[in-house]
């Protein structure tokens, strides 16, 4: 590659390197200078994790060629405070608990630093607006905004620096707001995630992914790719020495496609090379011949007789069906004064953790195959990898690196197997870092769902029977579908004691992006339907939404939908707590908004109109309240 001498000042020190001038400033900082506090969340200018100061101006370093920073004065998150110290903003982040996974946090701290430099008196609305270009998936932004406001108050002298000190402990550390112990490492960018780690002699991996949703693999020819200078190995499913297959419940997914591909983005082969660019170049030289197969893209189609079969072991395309039966639904519906029928659906959702998948594997001196990655389940991954590579379990080691957001999306072992195989084949450490696009197309999503609902109630709002039927698109592989269907079924009818119910949840295979574990594991999809039905019923019966829930809620001694006897049920307490805190005005949910007297009070914010924060709120008279 062409090289030039790049000169800049970075965090106050003069830096001179011969480097590829076409590389991004982000890569120059991370790879050449090892300043890994600057993160790559998207590589496309859309998340803010890569923010640095260039001549005092905040820029997204993923969008700037390194050559454009020639001669510039660069400040990264590592340069904000002296080693071992925190500046005011960093202390404020520590104090409020603003960092969770921490992956967005260096970028947030940089954006907030810029804000306080340019607008030290910023209002809350202005803080939100100026931080609006930085994505955080963990915190809900609330404590980040609180931290920025706190730092602003200290910087402007409105608050004493003492507010940044930890709270004194009383008689116990339980129930105490101990500041997060990991916060200093996150607000300074010091914490190393898997993609920040390097080992001597390390190779870089790139993955060839399927362009087809459903296709037979006729042949794979890797010879040309292997001949590329700088390529250490190319691996395919033929390199798997043991029993190929992983999954949280059924092991139906090969480490790389075996015989056929089942979704766009599925791994087909991987290259390990001296650098990422070489690995990517070599990918283009792998010849794969596909024969396209008819695909399944809708879960209802998957159940039709004669539908294409995605996995031979499941000729009906069903991943899992969970039935729950309690009481006698026919009797329950016969006793009802009102029967409601409705349908609900939820969409496929991306986890969007800010840290894309990344991992580093090596074989140690004792022949232990070791994988460092932000895996959400190292215990299970170790079991699966030991079978895949046919080595005893104590010769397989998983190390869980700090996870830059997971939400269930890092429970699937979708890349650790490839890393292990390449490390075994080359006897060198191998690292893989997903691009954002790879992360989105190759990782599991929240199951989309369709629910058919039938609910019978008496005039006074007691539910007499429920029939609940959910169909979910599991996508190309089983992943967590079985467990998600089970949890959806168990929780389906909500925190209510229902005497008669019939629940069925089913996940099917299609050729869509796989669905898997995602925070609530089916619980939110199911209860979205139930909680919508509760309000529909309340409207029809003229009951307050809290009241109809109380008339049906579980209590100590209740039998759950799976006929488990509860020893306690705090639903009465949380209903009351929410009702009181929100100053809820009782009444039936019949488009009551225009008449309500409880709107716009404490606990609400003003609506925002972008860019209008300096105007007088002229639409205030339009407000209903």
């Amino acid at each position, binding site marked *: 590659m062409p090289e030039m001498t790049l000169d800049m000042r970075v965090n106050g020190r003069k830096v001179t390197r011969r480097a590829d001038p076409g590389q991004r400033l982000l890569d120059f900082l991370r790879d050449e200078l090892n300043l890994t506090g600057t993160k790559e969340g998207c590589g496309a200018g859309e998340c803010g994790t890569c923010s640095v100061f260039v001549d005092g101006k905040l820029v997204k370093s993923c969008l700037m060629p390194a050559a454009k920073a020639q001669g510039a004065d660069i400040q990264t998150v590592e340069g904000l405070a002296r080693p071992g110290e925190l500046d005011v903003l960093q202390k404020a982040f520590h104090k409020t608990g603003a960092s969770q996974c921490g992956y967005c946090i260096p970028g947030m701290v940089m954006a907030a630093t810029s804000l306080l430099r340019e607008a030290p008196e910023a209002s809350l609305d202005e803080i939100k607006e100026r931080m609006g270009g930085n994505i955080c998936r963990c915190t809900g*932004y609330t404590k980040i905004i609180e931290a920025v406001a706190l730092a602003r108050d200290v910087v402007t002298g409105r608050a004493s620096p003492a507010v940044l000190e930890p709270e004194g402990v009383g008689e116990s550390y339980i129930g105490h707001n101990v500041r997060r112990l990991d916060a200093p490492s996150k607000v300074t960018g010091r914490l190393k995630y898997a993609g920040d780690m390097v080992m001597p002699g390390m190779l870089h991996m790139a993955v060839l992914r399927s362009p087809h949703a459903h296709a037979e693999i006729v042949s794979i020819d890797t010879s040309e790719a292997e001949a590329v200078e700088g390529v250490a190995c190319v691996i395919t499913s033929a390199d798997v020495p043991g029993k190929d297959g992983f999954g949280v419940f059924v092991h139906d997914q090969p480490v790389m496609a075996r015989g056929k591909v089942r979704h766009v*983005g599925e791994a087909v082969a991987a290259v390990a090379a001296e650098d990422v660019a070489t690995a990517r170049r070599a990918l283009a030289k792998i010849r794969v011949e596909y024969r396209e197969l008819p695909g399944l893209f809708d879960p209802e189609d998957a159940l039709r007789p004669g539908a294409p079969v995605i996995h031979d072991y499941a000729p009906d395309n069903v991943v899992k069906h969970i039935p729950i039966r309690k009481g006698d639904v026919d009797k329950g519906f016969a006793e009802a004064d009102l029967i409601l029928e409705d349908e609900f659906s939820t969409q496929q959702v991306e986890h969007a953790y800010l840290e894309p998948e990344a991992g580093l594997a090596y074989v140690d001196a004792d022949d232990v195959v070791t994988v460092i990655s932000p895996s959400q389940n190292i215990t299970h991954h170790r079991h699966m990898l030991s079978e895949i590579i046919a080595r005893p379990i104590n010769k397989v080691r998983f190390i869980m690196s700090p996870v830059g957001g997971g939400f269930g999306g890092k429970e699937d072992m979708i890349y650790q197997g490839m890393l292990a195989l390449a490390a075994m084949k080359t006897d060198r450490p191998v690292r893989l870092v997903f691009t954002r696009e790879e992360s989105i197309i190759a990782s599991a999503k929240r199951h989309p769902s369709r629910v058919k609902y039938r609910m019978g109630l008496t005039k006074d709002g007691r539910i007499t029977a429920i029939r609940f039927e959910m169909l979910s698109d599991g996508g190309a592989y089983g992943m967590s579908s079985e467990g998600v269907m089970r949890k959806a079924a168990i*929780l389906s009818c909500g925190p209510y004691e229902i005497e008669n119910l019939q629940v069925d949840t089913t996940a099917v295979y299609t050729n869509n992006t796989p669905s898997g574990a995602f925070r609530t594991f089916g619980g939110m999809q199911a209860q979205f339907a139930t909680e919508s039905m509760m309000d529909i019923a309340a409207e029809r019966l003229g009951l307050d939404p809290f009241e109809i829930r109380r008339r049906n809620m579980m209590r100590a001694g209740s039998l759950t939908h799976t006929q488990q006897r509860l020893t*306690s049920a705090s639903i009465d307490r949380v209903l009351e707590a929410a009702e009181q805190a929100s100053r809820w005005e009782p009444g039936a949910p019949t488009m009551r908004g225009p008449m309500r007297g409880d709107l716009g009070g404490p606990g609400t914010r003003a609506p925002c109109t972008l860019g209008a924060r300096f105007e007088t709120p002229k639409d205030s008279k339009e407000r209903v309240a």
Partner: protein
Amino acid sequence: MQRKMRGRGVAASWYGIARTATVDRAGAWAELDDGGTAKVVTGVTEIGEGILTVLAQIAAEELGIRPEDVTIGDNDTARSPEAAHAGATRQTYMIGNSVALACREAKARLFAEIAAHWEVDAGTLVAFDGELRAEGTNLAMTMAEAVDLCKRRGVVPVGAGHFAAHGTGLNPEDGSGAPWQAYVFGTQVAEVEVDTVTGEVQVLGLWAAHDVGRVINPRGVEGQIEGGVVQGLGQALMEDYQTANGHPVTHGFAKYILPTALDVPEITSILVEDPDPLSPLGAKGIGEPALVPTAPAIINAIHDAVGVRIRSLPATPEKVLAAIAEKQARAAAAREAAE
């Protein structure tokens, strides 16, 4: 109808703690170390939920030292006991209780030596925040001195602990079974404003009341609720992963829209404590349950504001506008029919 319409909605929820319909288990090791510090070894690390801080608080409380004196490792299948997965709202419950039990064993070893040294009953010893004393006496020393003394008597104060949550499998015919031993409940109220010209929905306020069992770190719990609520808001109003014939079309953040700081309502968290009677700590969990009621509360609030029921998520501006138009057309048809 006025342009900006407001309304409120509520949704309730429930959730089970730890792995479903199976025996969940975890283990941990602890050692009271030199200087009155401690080492705690578990198989987990931080995924952002604050587990390391929670474990340090638990260890500090059990051992009588300070959270910052606790070192947590090792997140490693070859160096630490089984922890299983960082998910299922199980970390505080499973690992937290394992750590508490491991620390109790380590502390018992230390207390036995100190009690023998002071010639008092071990039951009279109390340690907190780095100080150890025997109740009813004026005998006291620092935990650093205590560890030193214990070791000079030939005892290294180590402990191991494990904890199990006994769920049972579901009957394959009727689904009966006891999938969890601990349950939590939650209720959220959302207040929204609907712009009837653009269809845009803003969530202005959100009240979230959740039973989490015994609260270990209130700020940490709030952080989990706030994060869960905003993910729920994203799913309710904007997020939508789409494919066309299996080809992803929302493969970057320009196309896959996520909530930003500007979308966030004021969030009021109310922590309700119904301690778990089956575990040493009494804590339950909050990671997943926080998200469950958000979307239905928002959708119910939209109905309250403009009288339309969104049955298919997300409630995008287009969908909300179409529903309003359909409602108005229905009302007009009904008026005509009445005339």
